[in-house]
């Protein structure tokens, strides 16, 4: 399925509409490879002009997806808003520095006369004001207070920047492409979920992992057979029951880089899972270590 001509189309294969390589993040020499289901979900969000809510295990590429969309669709840099638990929805649009203005007024700074000098646009506000369509990443929305998601949707519905401090309303020039990530640590409001296009990024299978390794580790020449062994051991490790944090793609990439740098051979990857070299790049919690190395627990 693909969107009709008047809508942008995301391909998920790391190429732009002109056929160039869409490296993400910019500056790196690798591209983001999306699964077909993820591609369809992104395209659904594009044609429906709805935010795309992406969930999945940590390290499966939720955040990198926004950069991939921006790179493939040639929409410039991503406006990132990393959510904290004390954020409010308005901060996604703008912040008004009342305190700065008060200070400037105290010091007789002429800038204080113009209140617009103290307006700082947030990521969504900048996207509204941008001359072209922008990608806005709202990262880890599950950390935000409960009202935050609905504030985001409210702003997107109105498609305008309402600044009561300046007593003006600025209509959005373009509807931004909003990518929202969540680790599902808290339940999001139903109304918010209904108005988002949802996608859960599954852990990639072996073939997809091989493709990702080929793409992301272009500069690394692995010894023949080592890559296969690494994938075997990695998938074996993921299949261990009871791990609190299963290693994901990002951990795999790090592990491969470390193994390559340390000159680990294929033979050194045999034996128990607990004896794998540089296991710390894959496992991040002490209970997980204890599970694989009961003698050291």
């Amino acid at each position, binding site marked *: 399925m*693909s969107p009709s001509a008047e809508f942008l189309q995301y391909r998920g294969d790391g190429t732009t509409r002109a056929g160039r390589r869409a490296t993400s993040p910019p500056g790196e020499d690798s591209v983001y490879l999306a699964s077909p289901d993820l591609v369809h979900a992104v395209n659904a969000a594009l044609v*429906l002009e709805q935010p795309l809510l992406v969930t999945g295990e940590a390290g499966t590429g939720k955040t990198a997806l926004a950069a991939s969309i921006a790179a493939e669709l040639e929409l410039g840099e991503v406006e990132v808003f990393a959510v904290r638990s004390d954020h409010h929805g308005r901060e996604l649009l703008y912040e008004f520095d009342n305190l700065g203005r008060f200070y400037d007024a105290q010091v007789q700074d002429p800038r204080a006369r113009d209140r617009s000098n103290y307006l700082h646009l947030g990521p969504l506000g900048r996207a509204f004001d941008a001359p072209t369509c922008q990608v806005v990443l709202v990262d880890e929305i599950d950390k935000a207070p409960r009202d935050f998601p609905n504030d985001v949707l409210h702003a997107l519905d109105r498609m305008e920047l309402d600044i009561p401090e300046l007593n003006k309303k600025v209509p959005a020039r373009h509807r931004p492409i909003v990518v929202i990530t969540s680790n599902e640590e808290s339940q999001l409001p139903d109304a918010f979920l209904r108005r988002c296009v949802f996608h859960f990024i599954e852990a990639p299978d072996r073939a997809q992992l091989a493709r990702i390794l080929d793409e992301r580790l272009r500069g690394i020449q692995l010894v023949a057979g080592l890559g296969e062994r690494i994938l075997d051991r990695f998938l074996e490790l993921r299949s261990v029951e009871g791990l609190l944090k299963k290693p994901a793609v990002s951990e795999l990439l790090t592990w491969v880089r470390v193994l390559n740098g340390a000159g680990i051979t294929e033979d050194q990857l045999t034996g128990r899972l607990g004896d794998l070299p540089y296991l710390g790049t894959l496992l991040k919690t002490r209970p997980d270590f204890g599970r694989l190395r009961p003698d050291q627990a």
Partner: protein
Amino acid sequence: MLPLSDLLSVLRERGLPIGVHEHLTVGRLLERWQSVDSAGLRAALAAVLARNSAEVRLVRETFDELYGPRQKSVRPPPPAHLRRPPRRRWGRMAGLILAFSLIANSLAKEKLTQVVVPQTVTAKPAPKNEPPDLIGKTGPQEEPPISETFEQVNWKSALEVAAGLALLILLWLNGTRLQREACGLARRLWCRELDSLPRPYAYELTLGRLAPAFPAAVLDLAARLLGRAPAAARPDDLNIDRSLERTLHAGLAPQIVFQERSSPLELLVLQDISGEMRPWRRPVNALLAGLSARGVRLDIWHYHADASIVFRSPGRHAVSLERLASLRVGSPLLVISTGEGLPTGREGRLASWIANLNAWQSRAWLHPVTDASYWRPQLRQVATKVWPLTPGGVIAAAHHLAAVKASPRTQYSVFPDRPVVPLDVDRMRWLLSLAPRRDPDLIELLRQKFFPRMPPAALLETLEAAPLPDQLGSLPQPVEIHTFLADLLAATPPESGSAAHERWLLDRALQEVHIPSRRDEGLDRLQTLASGPLVGEVETAAGRLSGKRLQKLRKAIYKRAVEDGLAAATLKGRRRRLRWPDRFELSAAFLCALLFVWGFSRWLVDPQAVELIRLYNLEVINQDGRGPVVLRVTRRPRAPVIADLYRQNQKLKSLVLQGDFTIERASRGNWYYLWAWTGADHHRLAASNSVWVRAKGGQVEAAVPGGVMPPATKPRPVDTPSKAEPGPTEPLSDRNLVGPAPVPSFSSASSPMPPFGTLTILGYPEDLPPQLLHISGGLGMPSEGILWNGEALKLAPGDYLLVVHTPLRSLALAEVTIQDGSAARIKIAEEKIGAVRQSLVKSTPGGTGPRITEVTPDFQIHMLTIGARVAPKGNYSIQGDHFDASAKVSFYPLPDGLYLDHCQIQPEEIQCEFFIEHPLPRQWGAPDFIEVKVVNPDGRYAVSTVYLGSSR
């Protein structure tokens, strides 16, 4: 109907919060997207409708249920001769296996029933030239034969075959699954490849030769009637008659009167855009466009079957019909619909929104199906006049809306000349089977070209399967139609390099392969396309090709398509690997194996020897007296209580033998005997001796001495008792046989029967019946496996070699010569069996070697007492001195007929009593020992072996 409303309603039933927002979202999604493959639509719908991963799965599963592969019917149904054999034949195969099993089971039952029941052979009737009483006077008839064998299911073979069958089925199902998975993956990859081709994905046919749906004159007339037509009066046209009249009336003062300007009517159109209306889109659009082009102001609203909600265009603002009525009540209303939304509910009640149509004073309904017999009966209840969408119907509706009386001289009839007949339907289906796609306009073009007199309403039936062309009477040659379609396709090439172009090439090639002059070109094109992203569609299309010359190509294309597709998908290595069978495959294999065992196992039978045991004694009383002859039956212990009484070869009745049993009034001149199967395995036959009840005045003896029936199917020599002296006996030569004792011989000179002698074998002890293992020589002799109960064996004169086996495992060989009338008697030598003993072998894990302990065998009283000191103090290396009283003792194997009665376990001694149902039959290869295992509660144990015969 809203788009995908069935999917959304099912999802709502399954708990998803589907509301108006979701309906509109899905509608918007479908409006803005072009569908290329269902997988993409499935993923996009899941992303739009779901809120978590569980709901994603639910949406995908529901989508598969509703729009899965089994509901795909994009292509027209091919005629029967083009149909591919169905791929999934496992259901049919399972049915066949079940049917075969049922038949085999019933046949096997019958077969086994015939085998198990003793086969009584009817005695030959007496020759007609002989007097009937001659038989009774000259001697007894032949004894009825008994089947030597019975057939027993060979469970080992049956299970082996069933396991092999299950394995084959597993492999077959697994291979099928692998092929299905591989093809599925390949198809997805083909779709992806196809998706990567430039747009457009489908090509449009230019049907320039299609006749207009309505003649221009009809549209002109309708438009004029509706108030705005090119021929309508212009505002500056003079009304000459009125002008003259006014001028005259005004005293010749010039008065100018213009023609009255017709007031334009804004026609409100309610256009149904439900699925049923899709085939009629062209004439409806032609009508509306024609009216609009002629100046008729149209206010068009759409609805999906149910007009309670109408909208300008899908996805746009919707209003209720009631609200529309309040806004546009002054306009005449034209409804164009098949009335799909008229019936509601299961009872087919008239929809409530119909009542809202009455708000319009002037209203008309146009039905696109021109044959009124296809109209819904609910249309009769609508208070609106309905006309078919024919030229005459349009004009009539225009007259009605403009409140102008119709001219009776109109040249257009409202309904077509004739209704749709079954032949039209068949022809339409046939046309559809030839067309490259299910396009209503294309079918209409074919109809106009090849069957112009056929009513267009026949298109309604195109959803059904196409019949065979030869049933359709005179039809145009398919080549002509294929040529027409190929030319039509060739005239409208899409943009080169696009996916539509590939599909266009495929459709064109599929038409050309049916045209003899272009066949080679079409085949080459098909082969070329089979190497591209359309390989899946080529495979499907090639599967429908038929004809001898196309068979090879079809196979080649299919093979190449699969190979190329799979090679492109890098599946070559994967598809051949066996996967672990899933639950379905295991269940199917197990079920088939079970069915096989149930149905066919009875055919895998082995003949088993029938063992005859004499457990009844039949005695004739008062044979020579005047009164009735009485038969007295004596039943030995453990013999079956119920036995069948036979006279000659026919079963008389079943007897319950309690105590001394007599049979009164036995008829003379007949053989009598009893038999009964012992146990459930039907291999032991408890039988009586057979007795001959002499006819009155007959010359023969009443009873045959010692006549247990040997199991032979051949007629045996007729027993002719004689009062003559016994003949000379022959000496025995074996070491184990005592030499022949002189017994009185009897003469058979006066007997009319063939010559014979008798042989008596005595066992040791004498009550213990020996087994005649082998006898060779003579004629008509049984071979082996005969239990001998000490009765005299009737043998024809000759030299015989005997091999006799006693229950105590002592073999005896003897040569004996039987003469006519002789009565030989051989006895197993006592001194050779003096060493009869049971051996007790004792072993422990440490292994101290065997030790033989004498025990007392006692078979004669049908009771065996094994007294074994299992753990004599200090003699063996068993840890610990004594067995506890709570030790457990087990025996293995227990020979058939030998049962453990009870065991008395004491320290240092175990006494067990066995119960013997009857004398134990001994056969070669049968276990002749019992392994006794005693286990102490503390885990120590001892194993002893007690032989049931003499020491080896």
